[in-house]
């Protein structure tokens, strides 16, 4: 056990790995919180482009790709140092981070906010198949969603599979949203009848939690989208254009939109910090590494059992700030993160649904954020939710990342939610 207090003579070095949603928010919040004369804050990322990832969903349909990109350095407040470099390894014993270019950065406290990435090499015939980025696509990267836009524009007839390889994935509702949007897309073009859409999932349905499945179970059928459930994909047969499951089921396709397995960053695995999928095991309430008290993990990079989503990162960062200050002072951590997530689900036809849930409470019906009045409705498609989702883009850039408080509690509230009757 290290008995040194965090604040010792001279500068304390806080190092943040990753300048995405969580890393940028944390840096800006901490800059405002910590004593500037005693702390230096450095953020490392492999490039300078911050991408608004919720936009990836819309790029294949209407959003201009360049609209989702801003310069990471402009989003970090003055006083935060930015280092552009790939990360090779964390040396915990030396409290140093080795960069790909060989440089080493030392730290007193480390925040890992390096997120998750799709790894299409984990499925046979995905990244190594002849159809990759041609008829087999993903929209979880900038390049992927731009390539999909092109294929979608040329698609006039045939079978589309919207497919999840394996949970957990970032933004677990995005594939469902894509299915709704692609249905809407072809309906508007007047060729919906020439396009057969199937939603393929390893889970036992599109909606797996009791209240959601009761309220929304009919939504796929309503949109004439087929469901292939309990589908554990073994490989993609590029020659025959088929998705093949371990149980022998085969689904032919003309366009496969897949969500590859999501894993943590390579340096996390190389540093021995990750689990089998490269996510860092942490205490789910404090987000502190279970093996090193000088390391906290924010955003998608940890193994906490809730959605990997920007809203989770946002709520978690707000809880984290006080905890971090307490940890530095050697006090017990005051806040316990409850796994709060809040997601808009585009349901097509100019509407969206809203989910609000945490570790212990499943998504319920009701209104949000104000009981009865709303204006947003939980677990039900509405126009207001759709407008909320679009408005979120500006909130993200102008309020979330700079670290302004939103009028939404970081703890989930039961106000406005209706409990199912037993």
């Amino acid at each position, binding site marked *: 056990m290290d008995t040194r207090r965090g604040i010792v003579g001279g500068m304390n070095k806080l190092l943040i790995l990753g300048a995405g949603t969580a890393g940028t928010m944390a840096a800006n919040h901490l800059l405002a919180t910590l004593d500037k004369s005693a702390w230096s804050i450095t953020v490392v990322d492999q490039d300078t482009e911050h991408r608004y990832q919720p936009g990836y969903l819309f790029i294949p349909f209407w959003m201009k790709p360049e609209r989702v990109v801003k310069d990471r350095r402009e989003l970090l407040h003055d006083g935060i140092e930015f280092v552009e470099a790939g990360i090779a390894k964390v040396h915990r014993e030396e409290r140093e981070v080795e960069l790909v270019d060989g440089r080493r950065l030392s730290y007193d406290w480390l925040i890992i906010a390096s997120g998750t990435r799709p790894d299409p090499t984990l499925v046979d015939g995905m990244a190594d198949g002849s159809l990759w980025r041609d008829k087999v696509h993903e929209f979880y990267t900038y390049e992927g969603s731009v390539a999909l836009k092109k294929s979608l524009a040329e698609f006039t007839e045939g079978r589309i599979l919207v497919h999840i390889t394996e949970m957990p994935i970032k933004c677990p509702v995005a594939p469902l949203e894509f299915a709704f949007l692609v249905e809407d897309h072809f309906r508007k073009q007047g060729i*919906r*009848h020439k396009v*057969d*859409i*199937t939603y393929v999932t390893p889970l036992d349905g599109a909606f797996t939690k009791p209240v959601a499945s009761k309220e929304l179970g009919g939504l796929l*059928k309503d949109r*004439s*989208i*087929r469901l292939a459930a309990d589908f554990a994909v073994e490989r993609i047969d590029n020659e025959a254009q088929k998705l093949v499951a371990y149980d022998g089921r085969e689904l032919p396709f003309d366009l496969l939109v897949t969500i590859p397995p999501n894993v943590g960053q390579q340096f996390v695995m190389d540093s021995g910090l990750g689990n089998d999928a490269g996510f860092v095991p942490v205490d789910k309430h404090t987000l502190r590494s279970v093996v090193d008290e000088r390391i906290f993990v924010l955003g998608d990079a940890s193994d906490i059992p809730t959605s990997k989503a920007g809203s989770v990162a946002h709520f978690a960062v707000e809880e984290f700030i006080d905890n971090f200050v307490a940890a530095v002072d050697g006090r017990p951590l005051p806040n316990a993160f409850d796994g709060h997530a809040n997601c808009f689900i585009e349901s097509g036809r100019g509407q969206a649904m809203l989910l609000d849930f945490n570790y212990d409470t499943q998504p319920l019906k009701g209104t949000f954020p104000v009981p009865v009045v709303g204006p947003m409705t939980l677990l039900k498609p509405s126009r207001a939710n759709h407008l909320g989702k679009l408005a979120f883009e500006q909130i993200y850039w102008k309020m979330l990342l700079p670290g302004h408080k939103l009028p939404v509690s970081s703890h989930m509230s039961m106000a406005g939610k209706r409990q199912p009757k037993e």
Partner: protein
Amino acid sequence: MAFICSKGNLDMAYPALIMGNAALGEGVEVHIFFTFWGLDIVNTKTNDKLKFTLSGNTAMHMPDLGRIKPGLEHVSMPQVLGNLPGMTGYATRMMNKQMEEQEIPTVPEFLDLLQASGAHMYACRLTYDMMKLLEADLHPGVEGVISAGDFIDIAEGAQVVFV
């Protein structure tokens, strides 16, 4: 036996379904071809809300009217009544109620029953394309979307009933 269903009215949906079911019960092989508005019977977006109309139905008379005046139950209803607002909804509810009293299943349930009993059901390719239907919407008992010619081959030598 082969049936061709070409009408999507509630009262025109039942005859083939009932006769087909009866034939299956007698151990007869049954093939049903749904064409034109008959496709509404196997389209899950429409088959739970088929309608019964007075208009064009000159034989329409109501057993309940006999209670008002004996003999009235045999008098066919004036065609013009069918043009009154709400009449179609009223007549549809009446018919569904009477069917329920006879313990006749609803159209979607009837299709499940036929499928389970081994009836072969097909959608007509030409009208399916014309109406821009979706395969995902068809009742799962429909084996395929086939051309009229294909069905003629299947039905060769069979007794064909056109509804």
